[in-house]
Protein backbone atom coordinates (compact mmCIF):
# COMPACT_ATOMS: atom_id res chain seq x y z
CA UNK A 1 0.00 0.00 0.00
CA UNK A 2 2.84 2.35 0.84
CA UNK A 3 4.50 1.79 -2.52
CA UNK A 4 1.45 2.98 -4.42
CA UNK A 5 1.23 6.19 -2.44
CA UNK A 6 4.91 6.92 -2.94
CA UNK A 7 4.96 6.51 -6.68
CA UNK A 8 1.89 8.63 -7.24
CA UNK A 9 3.24 11.52 -5.16
CA UNK A 10 6.65 11.58 -6.85
CA UNK A 11 7.92 15.17 -6.66
CA UNK A 12 9.26 16.82 -9.78
CA UNK A 13 12.55 18.68 -10.25
CA UNK A 14 13.53 20.87 -7.36
CA UNK A 15 15.70 23.94 -7.15
CA UNK A 16 17.51 25.37 -4.18
CA UNK A 17 16.83 29.02 -3.45
CA UNK A 18 19.09 31.50 -5.18
CA UNK A 19 20.20 32.97 -1.84
CA UNK A 20 21.41 29.60 -0.60
CA UNK A 21 23.37 28.82 -3.78
CA UNK A 22 24.89 32.27 -3.88
CA UNK A 23 25.72 32.13 -0.17
CA UNK A 24 27.51 28.82 -0.60
CA UNK A 25 29.40 30.08 -3.62
CA UNK A 26 30.45 33.25 -1.77
CA UNK A 27 31.63 31.18 1.21
CA UNK A 28 33.61 28.96 -1.15
CA UNK A 29 35.16 32.07 -2.73
CA UNK A 30 36.00 33.51 0.71
CA UNK A 31 37.60 30.22 1.70
CA UNK A 32 39.65 30.17 -1.49
CA UNK A 33 40.87 33.75 -0.98
CA UNK A 34 41.70 33.05 2.69
CA UNK A 35 43.69 30.07 1.49
CA UNK A 36 45.58 32.18 -1.04
CA UNK A 37 46.40 34.79 1.62
CA UNK A 38 47.37 31.98 3.97
CA UNK A 39 49.74 30.46 1.43
CA UNK A 40 51.60 33.79 1.48
CA UNK A 41 51.59 34.33 5.27
CA UNK A 42 51.42 30.88 6.87
CA UNK A 43 51.98 28.36 4.07
CA UNK A 44 52.17 25.24 6.24
CA UNK A 45 48.95 25.92 8.12
CA UNK A 46 47.10 27.01 4.98
CA UNK A 47 48.14 23.86 3.14
CA UNK A 48 47.16 21.81 6.17
CA UNK A 49 43.70 23.36 6.00
CA UNK A 50 43.64 22.72 2.27
CA UNK A 51 44.45 19.05 2.80
CA UNK A 52 41.66 18.76 5.39
CA UNK A 53 39.19 20.39 3.03
CA UNK A 54 40.38 18.23 0.15
CA UNK A 55 40.08 14.96 2.08
CA UNK A 56 36.65 15.92 3.41
CA UNK A 57 35.56 16.88 -0.11
CA UNK A 58 36.85 13.66 -1.69
CA UNK A 59 35.26 11.60 1.08
CA UNK A 60 31.83 13.07 0.51
CA UNK A 61 32.17 12.75 -3.26
CA UNK A 62 33.26 9.09 -3.00
CA UNK A 63 30.53 8.27 -0.49
CA UNK A 64 28.01 8.87 -3.29
CA UNK A 65 28.99 6.01 -5.65
CA UNK A 66 29.97 3.91 -2.62
CA UNK A 67 26.45 4.14 -1.17
CA UNK A 68 24.92 3.48 -4.61
CA UNK A 69 27.10 0.41 -5.15
CA UNK A 70 26.09 -1.02 -1.80
CA UNK A 71 22.43 -0.37 -2.62
CA UNK A 72 22.74 -2.11 -5.99
CA UNK A 73 24.71 -5.04 -4.62
CA UNK A 74 22.21 -5.63 -1.81
CA UNK A 75 19.21 -5.10 -4.07
CA UNK A 76 18.00 -2.53 -1.51
CA UNK A 77 14.77 -1.39 -3.12
CA UNK A 78 13.88 0.64 -0.03
CA UNK A 79 16.60 3.11 -0.97
CA UNK A 80 15.20 3.89 -4.43
CA UNK A 81 13.53 7.18 -3.47
CA UNK A 82 16.71 8.34 -1.70
CA UNK A 83 19.07 7.60 -4.56
CA UNK A 84 19.26 11.09 -6.06
CA UNK A 85 21.27 12.42 -3.14
CA UNK A 86 24.26 10.07 -3.42
CA UNK A 87 24.00 10.54 -7.18
CA UNK A 88 24.28 14.29 -6.74
CA UNK A 89 27.19 13.82 -4.32
CA UNK A 90 29.10 11.90 -7.00
CA UNK A 91 28.85 14.94 -9.27
CA UNK A 92 31.60 16.54 -7.16
CA UNK A 93 34.26 13.99 -8.17
CA UNK A 94 35.64 15.97 -11.14
CA UNK A 95 36.00 19.07 -8.91
CA UNK A 96 37.73 16.89 -6.33
CA UNK A 97 40.17 15.98 -9.10
CA UNK A 98 40.94 19.66 -9.66
CA UNK A 99 41.45 20.16 -5.91
CA UNK A 100 43.74 17.12 -5.96
CA UNK A 101 45.84 18.65 -8.71
CA UNK A 102 46.14 21.68 -6.44
CA UNK A 103 47.42 19.42 -3.68
CA UNK A 104 50.38 18.41 -5.86
CA UNK A 105 51.53 22.04 -5.71
CA UNK A 106 51.50 21.89 -1.91
CA UNK A 107 53.44 18.66 -1.39
CA UNK A 108 56.56 20.56 -0.45
CA UNK A 109 54.83 22.37 2.42
CA UNK A 110 52.98 19.30 3.70
CA UNK A 111 55.10 16.21 3.32
CA UNK A 112 58.49 15.66 4.88
CA UNK A 113 59.34 13.04 2.25
CA UNK A 114 59.14 15.61 -0.55
CA UNK A 115 62.39 17.25 0.61
CA UNK A 116 65.35 15.57 -1.08
CA UNK A 117 67.72 16.75 1.66
CA UNK A 118 65.64 15.21 4.48
CA UNK A 119 65.18 11.93 2.62
CA UNK A 120 68.90 11.64 1.98
CA UNK A 121 69.73 11.97 5.66
CA UNK A 122 66.96 9.62 6.78
CA UNK A 123 67.57 5.92 6.26
CA UNK A 124 63.92 4.86 6.51
CA UNK A 125 62.68 7.64 4.24
CA UNK A 126 65.31 6.88 1.60
CA UNK A 127 64.10 3.30 1.63
CA UNK A 128 60.54 4.50 1.18
CA UNK A 129 61.53 7.00 -1.53
CA UNK A 130 60.74 4.47 -4.26
CA UNK A 131 57.07 4.95 -3.37
CA UNK A 132 56.99 8.28 -1.57
CA UNK A 133 58.19 10.77 -4.15
CA UNK A 134 56.50 13.74 -5.76
CA UNK A 135 56.41 12.18 -9.24
CA UNK A 136 54.81 8.97 -8.05
CA UNK A 137 52.44 10.90 -5.79
CA UNK A 138 51.18 12.99 -8.70
CA UNK A 139 50.86 10.11 -11.16
CA UNK A 140 49.01 7.98 -8.61
CA UNK A 141 46.68 10.84 -7.73
CA UNK A 142 45.75 11.25 -11.39
CA UNK A 143 45.21 7.49 -11.79
CA UNK A 144 42.96 7.32 -8.70
CA UNK A 145 40.76 10.11 -9.93
CA UNK A 146 40.55 8.88 -13.52
CA UNK A 147 39.38 5.49 -12.22
CA UNK A 148 36.98 6.97 -9.68
CA UNK A 149 35.39 9.37 -12.11
CA UNK A 150 35.15 6.74 -14.84
CA UNK A 151 33.65 3.93 -12.74
CA UNK A 152 31.69 6.35 -10.55
CA UNK A 153 30.01 7.78 -13.64
CA UNK A 154 29.02 4.26 -14.70
CA UNK A 155 27.50 3.60 -11.27
CA UNK A 156 25.51 6.84 -11.36
CA UNK A 157 24.51 6.21 -14.99
CA UNK A 158 22.79 3.00 -13.96
CA UNK A 159 19.82 4.94 -12.70
CA UNK A 160 20.02 8.23 -14.55
CA UNK A 161 20.33 6.94 -18.12
CA UNK A 162 17.00 6.91 -19.92
CA UNK A 163 17.90 4.17 -22.39
CA UNK A 164 16.77 0.72 -21.31
CA UNK A 165 19.70 -1.53 -20.52
CA UNK A 166 19.68 -5.16 -21.51
CA UNK A 167 20.21 -7.38 -18.48
CA UNK A 168 19.80 -4.36 -16.23
CA UNK A 169 20.21 -5.99 -12.83
CA UNK A 170 23.18 -8.12 -13.82
CA UNK A 171 24.91 -5.07 -15.24
CA UNK A 172 24.28 -2.94 -12.19
CA UNK A 173 25.64 -5.67 -9.92
CA UNK A 174 28.74 -6.08 -12.09
CA UNK A 175 29.46 -2.35 -12.19
CA UNK A 176 28.87 -1.93 -8.46
CA UNK A 177 31.15 -4.84 -7.65
CA UNK A 178 33.78 -3.36 -9.96
CA UNK A 179 33.55 -0.02 -8.16
CA UNK A 180 33.88 -1.61 -4.72
CA UNK A 181 36.85 -3.74 -5.79
CA UNK A 182 38.61 -0.83 -7.45
CA UNK A 183 37.86 1.55 -4.59
CA UNK A 184 39.25 -0.77 -1.94
CA UNK A 185 42.65 -0.80 -3.63
CA UNK A 186 42.81 2.81 -4.80
CA UNK A 187 41.48 4.32 -1.59
CA UNK A 188 43.95 2.29 0.48
CA UNK A 189 46.82 3.67 -1.58
CA UNK A 190 45.34 7.17 -1.63
CA UNK A 191 44.96 7.24 2.15
CA UNK A 192 48.62 6.29 2.48
CA UNK A 193 49.68 8.93 -0.04
CA UNK A 194 47.60 11.82 1.20
CA UNK A 195 47.21 11.36 4.94
CA UNK A 196 49.34 8.60 6.41
CA UNK A 197 52.52 9.91 4.76
CA UNK A 198 52.20 13.09 6.83
CA UNK A 199 53.89 10.93 9.46
CA UNK A 200 56.21 9.25 6.96
CA UNK A 201 57.97 7.02 9.50
CA UNK A 202 54.73 5.59 10.76
CA UNK A 203 52.63 2.91 9.15
CA UNK A 204 49.44 1.10 9.94
CA UNK A 205 47.54 -1.45 7.89
CA UNK A 206 44.34 -0.33 9.57
CA UNK A 207 44.68 3.24 8.37
CA UNK A 208 42.87 2.92 5.03
CA UNK A 209 39.87 1.42 6.80
CA UNK A 210 39.85 4.27 9.28
CA UNK A 211 39.72 6.75 6.42
CA UNK A 212 36.99 4.71 4.71
CA UNK A 213 34.89 4.46 7.87
CA UNK A 214 35.14 8.22 8.36
CA UNK A 215 34.08 8.78 4.74
CA UNK A 216 31.14 6.44 5.25
CA UNK A 217 29.99 8.24 8.39
CA UNK A 218 30.28 11.72 6.87
CA UNK A 219 28.71 10.69 3.56
CA UNK A 220 25.76 9.01 5.21
CA UNK A 221 25.34 11.93 7.61
CA UNK A 222 25.23 14.38 4.69
CA UNK A 223 22.69 12.16 2.88
CA UNK A 224 20.54 12.10 5.99
CA UNK A 225 20.87 15.83 6.52
CA UNK A 226 19.81 16.65 2.95
CA UNK A 227 16.89 14.22 3.17
CA UNK A 228 15.56 15.56 6.46
CA UNK A 229 15.86 19.14 5.22
CA UNK A 230 14.11 18.29 1.94
CA UNK A 231 11.46 16.51 3.97
CA UNK A 232 10.83 19.52 6.16
CA UNK A 233 10.82 21.89 3.18
CA UNK A 234 8.21 19.77 1.47
CA UNK A 235 9.48 18.14 -1.73
CA UNK A 236 10.22 14.79 -0.14
CA UNK A 237 7.61 14.69 2.59
CA UNK A 238 5.70 11.77 1.07
CA UNK A 239 8.85 9.83 0.33
CA UNK A 240 10.87 10.09 3.51
CA UNK A 241 8.49 8.26 5.81
CA UNK A 242 9.13 7.57 9.47
CA UNK A 243 10.25 4.07 8.49
CA UNK A 244 12.81 5.47 6.07
CA UNK A 245 14.18 7.85 8.71
CA UNK A 246 14.37 4.89 11.05
CA UNK A 247 16.44 3.02 8.45
CA UNK A 248 18.73 6.01 7.92
CA UNK A 249 19.18 6.35 11.66
CA UNK A 250 20.07 2.68 11.93
CA UNK A 251 22.64 2.97 9.14
CA UNK A 252 24.16 6.04 10.82
CA UNK A 253 24.28 4.16 14.12
CA UNK A 254 25.98 1.16 12.57
CA UNK A 255 28.47 3.37 10.74
CA UNK A 256 29.32 5.18 13.99
CA UNK A 257 29.89 1.75 15.55
CA UNK A 258 32.03 0.72 12.59
CA UNK A 259 34.10 3.89 12.88
CA UNK A 260 34.65 3.37 16.60
CA UNK A 261 35.48 -0.29 16.06
CA UNK A 262 38.14 0.54 13.48
CA UNK A 263 39.50 3.40 15.59
CA UNK A 264 39.81 1.16 18.59
CA UNK A 265 41.34 -1.72 16.62
CA UNK A 266 44.10 0.55 15.38
CA UNK A 267 44.71 2.19 18.74
CA UNK A 268 44.48 -1.01 20.79
CA UNK A 269 47.07 -2.92 18.75
CA UNK A 270 49.54 -0.05 18.81
CA UNK A 271 48.98 0.57 22.53
CA UNK A 272 49.31 -3.11 23.34
CA UNK A 273 52.44 -3.95 21.34
CA UNK A 274 54.08 -0.66 22.28
CA UNK A 275 56.89 -0.70 19.71
CA UNK A 276 58.63 2.60 18.99
CA UNK A 277 58.01 2.84 15.23
CA UNK A 278 54.27 2.64 15.82
CA UNK A 279 53.67 4.54 19.04
CA UNK A 280 55.02 7.85 17.72
CA UNK A 281 51.73 8.56 16.01
CA UNK A 282 49.71 8.38 19.21
CA UNK A 283 52.43 9.90 21.42
CA UNK A 284 52.05 13.14 19.51
CA UNK A 285 48.27 12.92 19.59
CA UNK A 286 47.99 12.12 23.27
CA UNK A 287 50.14 14.96 24.54
CA UNK A 288 48.88 18.32 25.77
CA UNK A 289 45.82 19.75 24.05
CA UNK A 290 45.79 17.03 21.38
CA UNK A 291 45.27 14.63 24.27
CA UNK A 292 42.06 16.40 25.28
CA UNK A 293 40.78 16.30 21.69
CA UNK A 294 41.15 12.52 21.58
CA UNK A 295 38.25 11.67 23.94
CA UNK A 296 36.23 14.53 22.44
CA UNK A 297 36.67 12.87 19.04
CA UNK A 298 35.41 9.54 20.37
CA UNK A 299 32.46 11.18 22.11
CA UNK A 300 31.31 13.21 19.13
CA UNK A 301 31.78 10.49 16.51
CA UNK A 302 30.77 7.48 18.53
CA UNK A 303 29.27 7.84 22.01
CA UNK A 304 26.67 10.52 21.25
CA UNK A 305 25.39 9.08 17.92
CA UNK A 306 25.41 5.60 19.44
CA UNK A 307 23.30 6.50 22.46
CA UNK A 308 21.03 9.05 20.77
CA UNK A 309 20.18 6.85 17.78
CA UNK A 310 19.34 3.83 19.92
CA UNK A 311 15.74 4.55 20.97
CA UNK A 312 13.35 4.10 18.07
CA UNK A 313 11.26 7.26 18.65
CA UNK A 314 14.45 9.36 18.53
CA UNK A 315 15.55 7.86 15.24
CA UNK A 316 12.13 8.70 13.83
CA UNK A 317 12.27 12.34 14.88
CA UNK A 318 13.54 14.45 12.02
CA UNK A 319 14.82 17.12 14.44
CA UNK A 320 16.99 14.66 16.37
CA UNK A 321 18.16 12.92 13.20
CA UNK A 322 19.14 16.28 11.69
CA UNK A 323 21.11 17.25 14.77
CA UNK A 324 22.94 13.94 14.93
CA UNK A 325 23.79 14.23 11.22
CA UNK A 326 25.24 17.71 11.78
CA UNK A 327 27.14 16.47 14.81
CA UNK A 328 28.69 13.63 12.80
CA UNK A 329 29.63 16.05 10.02
CA UNK A 330 31.36 18.32 12.56
CA UNK A 331 32.86 15.23 14.18
CA UNK A 332 34.35 14.13 10.87
CA UNK A 333 36.06 17.52 10.54
CA UNK A 334 37.46 17.06 14.05
CA UNK A 335 38.56 13.53 13.18
CA UNK A 336 40.42 14.82 10.12
CA UNK A 337 41.89 17.68 12.17
CA UNK A 338 43.32 15.24 14.73
CA UNK A 339 44.58 13.03 11.90
CA UNK A 340 46.15 15.71 9.72
CA UNK A 341 47.07 18.73 11.82
CA UNK A 342 49.42 17.34 14.52
CA UNK A 343 52.39 16.60 12.23
CA UNK A 344 51.95 20.04 10.65
CA UNK A 345 51.36 22.12 13.79
CA UNK A 346 53.52 20.17 16.20
CA UNK A 347 52.49 19.95 19.83
CA UNK A 348 50.27 23.09 19.89
CA UNK A 349 46.65 22.88 18.88
CA UNK A 350 45.96 25.86 16.67
CA UNK A 351 42.64 26.22 14.94
CA UNK A 352 42.36 29.53 13.15
CA UNK A 353 41.42 31.14 9.90
CA UNK A 354 44.17 29.32 7.99
CA UNK A 355 42.74 25.93 8.90
CA UNK A 356 39.04 26.80 8.90
CA UNK A 357 39.09 28.97 5.76
CA UNK A 358 40.04 26.26 3.25
CA UNK A 359 38.02 23.59 5.08
CA UNK A 360 34.78 25.59 5.24
CA UNK A 361 35.37 26.85 1.70
CA UNK A 362 35.73 23.31 0.35
CA UNK A 363 32.57 22.20 2.14
CA UNK A 364 30.62 25.19 0.83
CA UNK A 365 31.83 24.40 -2.68
CA UNK A 366 30.65 20.83 -2.19
CA UNK A 367 27.26 22.04 -1.03
CA UNK A 368 26.93 24.28 -4.08
CA UNK A 369 27.77 21.41 -6.46
CA UNK A 370 25.37 19.12 -4.60
CA UNK A 371 22.46 21.56 -4.86
CA UNK A 372 23.13 22.19 -8.54
CA UNK A 373 23.26 18.46 -9.27
CA UNK A 374 20.06 17.87 -7.30
CA UNK A 375 18.22 20.38 -9.46
CA UNK A 376 19.07 18.55 -12.67
CA UNK A 377 16.82 15.50 -12.28
CA UNK A 378 13.51 14.69 -10.63
CA UNK A 379 14.17 14.32 -6.91
CA UNK A 380 12.74 10.83 -6.79
CA UNK A 381 13.87 8.45 -9.51
CA UNK A 382 11.27 6.36 -11.27
CA UNK A 383 11.59 2.64 -11.70
CA UNK A 384 14.73 1.76 -13.59
CA UNK A 385 15.55 -1.59 -15.15
CA UNK A 386 19.05 -1.57 -13.72
CA UNK A 387 18.18 -0.60 -10.17
CA UNK A 388 16.51 -2.70 -7.52
Amino acid at each position, binding site marked *: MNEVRETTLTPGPWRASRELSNGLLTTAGLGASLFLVGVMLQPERAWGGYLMGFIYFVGLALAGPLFLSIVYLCGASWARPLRRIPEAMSAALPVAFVLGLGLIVGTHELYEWSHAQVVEEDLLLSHKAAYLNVGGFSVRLIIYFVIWIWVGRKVVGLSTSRTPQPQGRRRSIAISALFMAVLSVTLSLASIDWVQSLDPHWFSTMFALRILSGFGCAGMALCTLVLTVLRRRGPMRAVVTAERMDDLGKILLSLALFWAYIWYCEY*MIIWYTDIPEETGYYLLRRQGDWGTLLPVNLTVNFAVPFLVLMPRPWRRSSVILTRVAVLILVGHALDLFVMIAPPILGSDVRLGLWELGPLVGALALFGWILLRALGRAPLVPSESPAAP
Partner: protein
Amino acid sequence: MKRFTQVGLFEREEQLLAAIGESRIRGLVVVDAYSPYPIHGIDELMGIRRSRLTMVCFFGGLAGLALGLWFQYWSSATDWPLNVGGKPFDSLPAFMPVGFELTVLFGGLSTALMLFVRSRLWPGKRGRALEGVTDDRFALVIARRNTDMSSAELPELLRRHGAIDVWQEGGE
Protein backbone atom coordinates in the same frame (compact mmCIF):
# COMPACT_ATOMS: atom_id res chain seq x y z
CA MET B 1 -12.66 -20.25 31.92
CA LYS B 2 -11.16 -19.59 28.55
CA ARG B 3 -12.58 -17.29 25.95
CA PHE B 4 -14.15 -18.56 22.76
CA THR B 5 -11.90 -17.68 19.86
CA GLN B 6 -12.43 -18.06 16.18
CA VAL B 7 -9.54 -19.20 13.99
CA GLY B 8 -9.35 -18.60 10.28
CA LEU B 9 -6.77 -20.03 7.92
CA PHE B 10 -5.77 -17.98 4.88
CA GLU B 11 -3.70 -18.59 1.80
CA ARG B 12 -2.51 -15.08 1.11
CA GLU B 13 -0.95 -12.25 3.11
CA GLU B 14 -3.38 -9.64 1.74
CA GLN B 15 -6.39 -11.67 2.87
CA LEU B 16 -5.00 -11.86 6.38
CA LEU B 17 -4.29 -8.12 6.47
CA ALA B 18 -7.76 -7.27 5.17
CA ALA B 19 -9.38 -9.54 7.74
CA ILE B 20 -7.36 -7.94 10.54
CA GLY B 21 -8.37 -4.50 9.30
CA GLU B 22 -12.07 -5.31 9.30
CA SER B 23 -11.95 -7.06 12.67
CA ARG B 24 -10.41 -3.97 14.20
CA ILE B 25 -12.98 -1.68 12.60
CA ARG B 26 -15.81 -3.88 13.87
CA GLY B 27 -14.39 -3.65 17.39
CA LEU B 28 -13.43 -7.32 17.60
CA VAL B 29 -10.41 -8.50 19.56
CA VAL B 30 -7.51 -9.56 17.36
CA VAL B 31 -6.05 -12.21 19.62
CA ASP B 32 -3.13 -13.14 17.39
CA ALA B 33 -2.02 -13.64 13.82
CA TYR B 34 0.32 -16.29 12.49
CA SER B 35 2.46 -16.02 9.41
CA PRO B 36 5.39 -18.00 8.02
CA TYR B 37 7.40 -14.78 7.62
CA PRO B 38 7.39 -11.32 9.20
CA ILE B 39 4.86 -8.99 7.57
CA HIS B 40 5.82 -5.34 7.34
CA GLY B 41 3.46 -3.08 9.29
CA ILE B 42 1.31 -5.87 10.72
CA ASP B 43 2.07 -4.84 14.31
CA GLU B 44 0.62 -1.42 13.66
CA LEU B 45 -2.43 -2.90 11.95
CA MET B 46 -3.08 -5.26 14.84
CA GLY B 47 -2.65 -2.46 17.34
CA ILE B 48 0.21 -4.15 19.17
CA ARG B 49 1.99 -1.87 21.59
CA ARG B 50 5.73 -1.24 21.23
CA SER B 51 7.73 -4.07 22.75
CA ARG B 52 9.53 -3.21 25.95
CA LEU B 53 12.08 -5.96 25.37
CA THR B 54 14.53 -3.39 24.02
CA MET B 55 14.78 -1.87 27.47
CA VAL B 56 15.63 -5.30 28.90
CA CYS B 57 18.30 -5.63 26.23
CA PHE B 58 19.73 -2.18 26.99
CA PHE B 59 19.96 -2.64 30.72
CA GLY B 60 21.12 -6.24 30.35
CA GLY B 61 23.92 -5.02 28.11
CA LEU B 62 24.77 -2.23 30.51
CA ALA B 63 24.96 -4.73 33.38
CA GLY B 64 27.23 -6.95 31.27
CA LEU B 65 29.54 -4.03 30.49
CA ALA B 66 29.70 -2.99 34.14
CA LEU B 67 30.35 -6.53 35.30
CA GLY B 68 33.01 -7.12 32.65
CA LEU B 69 34.89 -3.93 33.44
CA TRP B 70 34.56 -4.30 37.18
CA PHE B 71 35.67 -7.93 37.24
CA GLN B 72 38.75 -7.24 35.14
CA TYR B 73 39.62 -4.24 37.27
CA TRP B 74 39.17 -6.25 40.44
CA SER B 75 41.12 -9.28 39.24
CA SER B 76 44.02 -7.52 37.50
CA ALA B 77 44.40 -4.37 39.57
CA THR B 78 43.09 -5.17 43.08
CA ASP B 79 43.12 -8.84 43.88
CA TRP B 80 46.13 -10.11 41.97
CA PRO B 81 48.06 -7.31 40.25
CA LEU B 82 50.17 -8.70 37.42
CA ASN B 83 52.66 -6.74 35.39
CA VAL B 84 51.79 -7.41 31.75
CA GLY B 85 54.24 -5.81 29.34
CA GLY B 86 54.79 -2.86 31.68
CA LYS B 87 51.23 -1.67 31.30
CA PRO B 88 49.43 -0.09 34.24
CA PHE B 89 47.42 -2.60 36.26
CA ASP B 90 44.26 -0.65 35.61
CA SER B 91 44.27 -0.38 31.78
CA LEU B 92 40.95 0.46 30.22
CA PRO B 93 41.99 -0.27 26.59
CA ALA B 94 42.85 -3.84 27.55
CA PHE B 95 39.53 -4.30 29.32
CA MET B 96 37.41 -3.19 26.37
CA PRO B 97 37.25 -6.47 24.37
CA VAL B 98 35.96 -8.48 27.34
CA GLY B 99 33.68 -5.62 28.37
CA PHE B 100 32.27 -5.55 24.84
CA GLU B 101 31.78 -9.32 24.72
CA LEU B 102 29.94 -9.36 28.05
CA THR B 103 27.76 -6.47 26.89
CA VAL B 104 26.67 -8.52 23.88
CA LEU B 105 26.31 -11.73 25.89
CA PHE B 106 24.24 -10.22 28.69
CA GLY B 107 22.18 -8.10 26.30
CA GLY B 108 21.36 -11.14 24.16
CA LEU B 109 20.76 -13.61 26.95
CA SER B 110 18.63 -11.30 29.06
CA THR B 111 16.47 -10.46 26.03
CA ALA B 112 16.01 -14.11 25.08
CA LEU B 113 15.25 -15.16 28.66
CA MET B 114 12.80 -12.33 29.18
CA LEU B 115 11.11 -13.23 25.89
CA PHE B 116 10.62 -16.81 27.12
CA VAL B 117 9.32 -15.63 30.47
CA ARG B 118 6.87 -13.18 28.95
CA SER B 119 5.60 -15.66 26.36
CA ARG B 120 5.32 -18.33 29.06
CA LEU B 121 7.64 -20.73 27.29
CA TRP B 122 9.58 -23.20 29.38
CA PRO B 123 11.22 -26.58 28.81
CA GLY B 124 8.66 -29.36 28.59
CA LYS B 125 5.76 -27.05 27.85
CA ARG B 126 3.38 -28.55 25.34
CA GLY B 127 1.94 -26.16 22.85
CA ARG B 128 0.03 -26.73 19.67
CA ALA B 129 1.11 -25.08 16.48
CA LEU B 130 -1.48 -24.25 13.89
CA GLU B 131 -0.94 -26.41 10.88
CA GLY B 132 0.69 -24.72 7.92
CA VAL B 133 1.57 -21.39 9.52
CA THR B 134 5.25 -22.27 9.40
CA ASP B 135 4.89 -23.19 5.75
CA ASP B 136 2.46 -21.43 3.42
CA ARG B 137 -0.63 -20.56 5.49
CA PHE B 138 -1.65 -17.47 7.42
CA ALA B 139 -3.87 -17.75 10.46
CA LEU B 140 -5.91 -15.14 12.29
CA VAL B 141 -7.42 -15.63 15.73
CA ILE B 142 -10.21 -13.23 16.69
CA ALA B 143 -12.74 -13.01 19.48
CA ARG B 144 -15.70 -10.88 20.49
CA ARG B 145 -15.22 -8.23 23.09
CA ASN B 146 -16.77 -8.76 26.55
CA THR B 147 -18.42 -12.08 25.71
CA ASP B 148 -17.34 -15.65 25.91
CA MET B 149 -19.99 -16.71 23.44
CA SER B 150 -19.29 -17.00 19.76
CA SER B 151 -21.72 -16.24 17.05
CA ALA B 152 -22.03 -16.73 13.33
CA GLU B 153 -20.61 -13.27 12.75
CA LEU B 154 -16.99 -14.23 13.23
CA PRO B 155 -16.75 -17.22 10.86
CA GLU B 156 -18.72 -15.26 8.31
CA LEU B 157 -16.24 -12.37 8.47
CA LEU B 158 -13.28 -14.69 8.10
CA ARG B 159 -14.82 -16.55 5.19
CA ARG B 160 -15.67 -13.32 3.42
CA HIS B 161 -11.96 -12.43 3.38
CA GLY B 162 -11.10 -15.77 1.82
CA ALA B 163 -10.44 -18.06 4.79
CA ILE B 164 -10.15 -21.62 3.52
CA ASP B 165 -10.83 -23.10 6.93
CA VAL B 166 -12.60 -21.71 9.99
CA TRP B 167 -13.03 -23.30 13.39
CA GLN B 168 -13.61 -22.45 17.02
CA GLU B 169 -11.22 -22.82 19.87
CA GLY B 170 -11.31 -22.55 23.63
CA GLY B 171 -14.31 -22.12 25.84
CA GLU B 172 -14.00 -25.05 28.17
